[in-house]
């Protein structure tokens, strides 16, 4: 089992229900491949450094996952073909940080 950090950007015009359904699908994939979400961070809507799919803003969500490499492959496969997800990045990490990052929405 490894630790992963996964960040994905959804388009900002989505309603709360739609972003929640994206999250639900990820948790479903995790359950199927016996992975777990250990920590979650919401970075809120941020302005992008460059336009992605003609959007100048994006909604960032960050999750810390425990699981094997299959989980990450499945999640990325789903996100690649889902139009609601604009971009994603997953990184293998050794430790899960205890403090929340600076990017967490404060307001």
């Amino acid at each position: 089992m490894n630790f992963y950090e996964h960040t994905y950007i959804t388009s900002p015009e989505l309603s709360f229900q739609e972003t929640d359904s994206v999250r639900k699908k990820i948790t479903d994939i995790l359950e199927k491949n016996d992975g777990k979400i250990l920590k979650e961070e919401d970075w809120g809507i941020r302005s992008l450094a460059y336009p992605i799919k003609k959007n100048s803003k994006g909604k960032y969500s960050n999750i810390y996952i425990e699981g094997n490499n299959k989980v990450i492959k499945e999640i990325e496969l789903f996100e690649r073909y889902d139009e609601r997800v604009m971009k994603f990045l997953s990184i293998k990490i050794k430790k899960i940080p205890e403090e929340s990052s600076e990017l967490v929405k404060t307001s």
Partner: protein
Amino acid sequence: MMKRKKDKKKFNKSGGANSLFNKTNQRQSKSCPLSGKNAPEINYKNLKLLKKYVSDTAKILPSRITNVSLGKQRALSKEIKKARVLALMPYVGN
């Protein structure tokens, strides 16, 4: 005339050697700002830190300007590239 020229040459030679030696003494190497005990953590989420090591046109600054050590420079450039993927930092500036 000939004598004078010879004298000059001799003077230059000794002077040149001295100035070279002095230069190495005058230049003091600055220590790496990202090494040491109280050094900040290099992470792609730490945007305030990363923006210091990027030029106006969003290029990564060379370590010979910023005095970052070789290992830390490698880590820094990797984290900047991660931040670029997530559109937290630009690939090209204005």
